[in-house]
């Protein structure tokens, strides 16, 4: 398998001048293409910080992050913006769609930033909305959608440009059970059909149950890394 994410001994320290606090402490992480991985841990364990470091939103104080072999820690802010656009899909906790754009425009926006031509954009939008089962909501504004629907659009947006991987920060945190289950079904389906790598932080047991691999983070350190085999809603797992 190909290594998509290679985080090598990365650390992120806050309050360096006074009392150093390690949000991420010497983490070593490999994610292979097509993995469906959950990053779990209590609040303040460093899940979001680790995702930010992997996603190029923040820079580690120590160590390197390589995406498909490219060390992104040396990239400038502008290069990182371009890198994220071309390689990473993001799904944030609180929906984060652009409120003035329709669902379709939200998905198209990313493709337009990449310079994808109109006909290809429309075909991709049609395909993605079919996959997230929201073809009837193309022209709805985010405010007209439920939380679950907004999060499905966010997933479609994350996948629009066929990124190397998708980082999802607590994607089900604000969803009811049914919406969360639907979202997970869609993410699992896309992971399977398009071989998109998913890495999501969560402390939602429903998400953990569906993950192929569960990495536990406590106080910024990985305390366990477990591979599971998951079928739809069954909860069968095996230790790595």
């Amino acid at each position, binding site marked *: 398998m190909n290594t998509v994410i290679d985080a090598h001994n990365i650390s992120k320290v806050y309050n360096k001048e006074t009392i150093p606090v390690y949000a991420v402490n010497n983490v070593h992480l490999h994610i292979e293409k097509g993995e469906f991985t959950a990053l779990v841990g209590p609040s303040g364990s460093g899940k979001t910080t680790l995702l930010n470091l992997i996603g190029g939103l923040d820079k580690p104080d120590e160590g390197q992050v390589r995406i498909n072999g490219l060390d992104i820690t040396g990239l400038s802010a502008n290069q990182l913006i371009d890198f994220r*656009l071309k390689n990473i899909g993001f799904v944030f906790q609180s929906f984060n769609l652009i409120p003035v754009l329709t669902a379709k425009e939200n998905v198209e926006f990313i493709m337009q930033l990449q310079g994808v031509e109109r006909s290809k954009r429309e075909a991709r939008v049609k395909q993605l909305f079919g996959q997230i089962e929201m073809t009837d909501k193309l022209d709805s504004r985010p405010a007209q959608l439920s939380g679950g629907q907004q999060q499905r659009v966010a997933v479609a947006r994350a996948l629009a440009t066929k990124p190397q991987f998708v980082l999802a920060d607590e994607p089900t945190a604000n969803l009811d059970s049914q919406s969360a289950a639907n979202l997970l079904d869609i993410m699992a389906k896309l992971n399977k059909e398009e071989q998109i790598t998913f890495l999501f932080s969560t402390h939602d047991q429903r998400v953990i149950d569906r993950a192929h691999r569960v990495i536990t983070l406590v106080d910024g350190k990985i305390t366990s890394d477990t591979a599971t085999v998951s079928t739809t809603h069954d909860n069968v797992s095996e230790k790595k």
Partner: protein
Amino acid sequence: MILIMAWRNIWRNKMRSMVIILSIAVGLFAGIAVLALYKGMMKSRVRTVIDAEVGHLQIHDINFKKDYEPKFVLTDGAAILKTVSSMPAVKLAAPRSITTGMLSTTTGSAGVQINGVVPQLEYEASQLKKKIVAGKVFDPVKNNEIMIGQKLATKMKLKVRSKLVLTFTDTASNMVSGAFRVTAIYKSDNTPLDEKNVYITMTDLNALLGISNGFHEVMLLLKNDNDVNKVQQELKRAFPAYQIESWREISPETDFMVKTTDQYSYIIMVIIMFALAFGIVNTMLMAVLERTREIGMMMALGTNRLKVFSLIFLETIFLTLAGTPIGILIGWGTSAYFNEHGLDLSGMGQDMMSSFGFGTMVYPEFPADKLLAVLLIVTGTAIISCLFPAIKAVKLRPVEALRR
């Protein structure tokens, strides 16, 4: 897409956007009103200068205006008059004999410019007849009648039918005097000129000056204001020995006033817009701060800084330009109304206005010729106003913005 987003973003907070759009409209209206008022005042002043004071062009002996010595007459004045009157661009040519002297009464005296005119021509050339506020026009069968300005009449305590004496030097430098009776008192929009200029008939003046045939000045009124330069050149070619001056050269202060007023009105416009810029900056800054998380999310997804800058820039431009047609429309409507009905500024002080040569009734004119400059000022305001909020937005770090 950035364009669509920018347009929709300004309507996210309708009330706030409407307040700033209306502020811009009112500011623009105020600027246009000032421009229209100044344009109306300047146009009226120029019209007064041309129609009631100096005409479009004047012809003199080349030495006459140095000291207003009466000996420098246009000796072939009749031929000049005949030539200029036959020019198709010329509406009217009026001759004048001119000298300076002393006006005396039993109570005092004052220095005056004595204009010897051909009444029927002068009534039309300087609208002298229209300016009469007391008395009557020159009686063709009477001699030694004089028209004086109201300001001079007040100063010298003169009334219609009052007697006065004019004293001046003739063409041979002899002191001569003549007794005159006030036939009319006139009042123009230019008080200093009213105090200085008196009118008698050319026949009376020439007799006292000892001019048997000729006069000092030919004043020309043209059919079209735009022909001044062309006719001036033609006259210079036809009469190279004489001084041919346009109203701009005769009344340089008016030309200077027109030019500087244009500059002043632009400065006022810039000041109004500068004040408005703070409102725009405040609104856009609030819009950016409210959307910190959203902008951070956009940057996290891969929206580069140029696009974020463009978004804020376009929002500011839209916000500013949305108020522009409203301001222009109100400005145009108001100018059009007062252009037709006039704006009475007598409340501001009639004496003050006329001491600067302005009438109290102003007809503001929509400054269509300055519209491009106005739009440039407005656009410049928008660009300057957007800089601070836009820089604030592009400096956001996605990771910090997303935490908010």
